[in-house]
């Protein structure tokens, strides 16, 4: 099954690199412009469950890696065929300095909160997603907090050491 999909992906898209990691796992590396069309291709093939959009900060290479995990729901007859075990990890790299990508909401509607989270925690701008509002955090950060160069200890020192103790205030 995975060999078949690897062949189909490679023949449909020129610049995609597909690796079979295990029987149930396929990793594809693609340029960022091809992501939307690959996802819609996979969806038409029956891989209709976008489980997760994640991001890895490869600071030494100066790149952020967007990771889309796609698998499939049960198909029409509602029975396990073994096909659902397969999941595809689609990866694309964008520069850290100019982290921009296109939204995939038009293919998978549930991408919206994942992109919103990555916008907040990694500072990635998803073109076309209108709801990139703050999700978890209440303060503004100079560096998006989940990037590798954000130092949590220094941040705590800078932010919270300035607040005086209650006893000091009384005096």
């Amino acid at each position, binding site marked *: 099954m995975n060999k078949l999909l690897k062949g189909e992906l490679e023949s449909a898209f020129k610049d995609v690199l597909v690796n079979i990691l295990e029987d149930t796992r396929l990793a594809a590396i693609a340029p960022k412009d091809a992501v939307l069309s690959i996802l819609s291709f996979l969806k038409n093939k029956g891989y209709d469950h976008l489980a997760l959009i994640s991001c890895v900060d490869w600071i030494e290479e100066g790149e952020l890696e967007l990771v889309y*995990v796609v698998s499939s729901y049960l198909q029409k007859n509602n029975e*396990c065929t073994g096909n659902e075990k397969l999941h595809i990890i689609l990866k694309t790299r964008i520069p850290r300095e100019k982290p921009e990508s296109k939204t995939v909401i038009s293919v998978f509607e549930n991408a919206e*909160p994942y992109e919103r989270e990555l916008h907040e925690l990694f500072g990635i701008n998803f073109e076309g997603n209108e709801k990139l509002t703050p999700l978890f955090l209440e303060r503004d950060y100079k560096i998006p907090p989940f990037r590798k160069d954000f130092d949590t200890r220094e941040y705590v020192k800078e932010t919270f050491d300035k607040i005086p103790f209650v006893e000091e205030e009384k005096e």
Partner: protein
Amino acid sequence: MRELELYFGPQHMGMVGNMSITLKAEGDRILEAQTNPGWLHRGFEKLMEYRTWIQNFPMVCRINVIEPDSMEMVYAMGVEKLAEIEVPERANYIRTIVLELSRLSSHLFGCWAYANMLGFDTVAQWAMYHRDLVLDLLEELTGARVYHIYIWPGGVRRDLPKGFKNKVLETLHTIGSSVPDYDATFFNNRLFYERAKGIGKITREEAKELGATGQILRATGMKFDIRKVEPYAVYDKVDFEIPTRQDGDAYSRVWLIRDEMIQSVHIVMQCLEKMPQGEVYNRIPNPFKWKIAKGEAYVRVESSRGELGLYMVSNGEDKPYRVHFRTPSYPHGLIILEKLLENASIADVGNTMISLYVIAPEIDR
């Protein structure tokens, strides 16, 4: 009519857990709902990048307060996959028992939340009492009531204590013999039917489109359960059913919780029967010096609310490079809840939310 903005939660009678919803309402009708998570955001995924593979175990269970064992399981599975560690057969049986007991306690908590919200206080107290009995078992096994830190890479921390099997059977018989009482007072009660039928209805197509898993998807008739789709532990060696319903409303979802508890009891009974003797853990390298080879993994388990996944990247160091949890409540609470609340009535907000079984700490992480 005048448009009003209402704040539902984080401190509200109808709200379980720390989450809030901003509602735009006209009279009793909701025009727009907006979920506001973040009250419990502790940045666990970032903190885990600063700690060794083993140091992360006390943290990973705290991501989900209600059902910590499935979190431990998915993290242990991720580490095992990256480091290529085998798990002994007996440990897999014990893991399954712990996971199912934990599912039972989580579902009983869910019953408490739903019954309490509808005003069935008696049933709610029964569910809380029975959950406590399950927690007693887990306490005897692991030494802690809520955060067990029991499932470990390479197996489980220790073997079952003496006489544990009989205690489990006794507790399961106590809970099982009260099922007729639950049915008579709650599940077959006309009030429950009237209040839950047709609330928060979602079709199968919509559910698939919005990334639903767990009871929300199974209530629309799809038998999607990771335990069957991609079996882990010993779920391929025990015999159990995946209960489904067709209507996709709150009534179906709450019935599914009840039916799944009965299946959990069957699984635990079978595991206790079939369990082989032997080791319960494989030795792992010295945790202080343990480096795991470069690689990435996506593993998933069926938690009590749906697909719980973990994407983990190792950079060849003694700490994970990146950890990202795919929690089931994330799409449920952030998109499906917002969609279902459009055009609903204000009285149905708590009903919809609790029937979706959304747990806030899981969203925030």
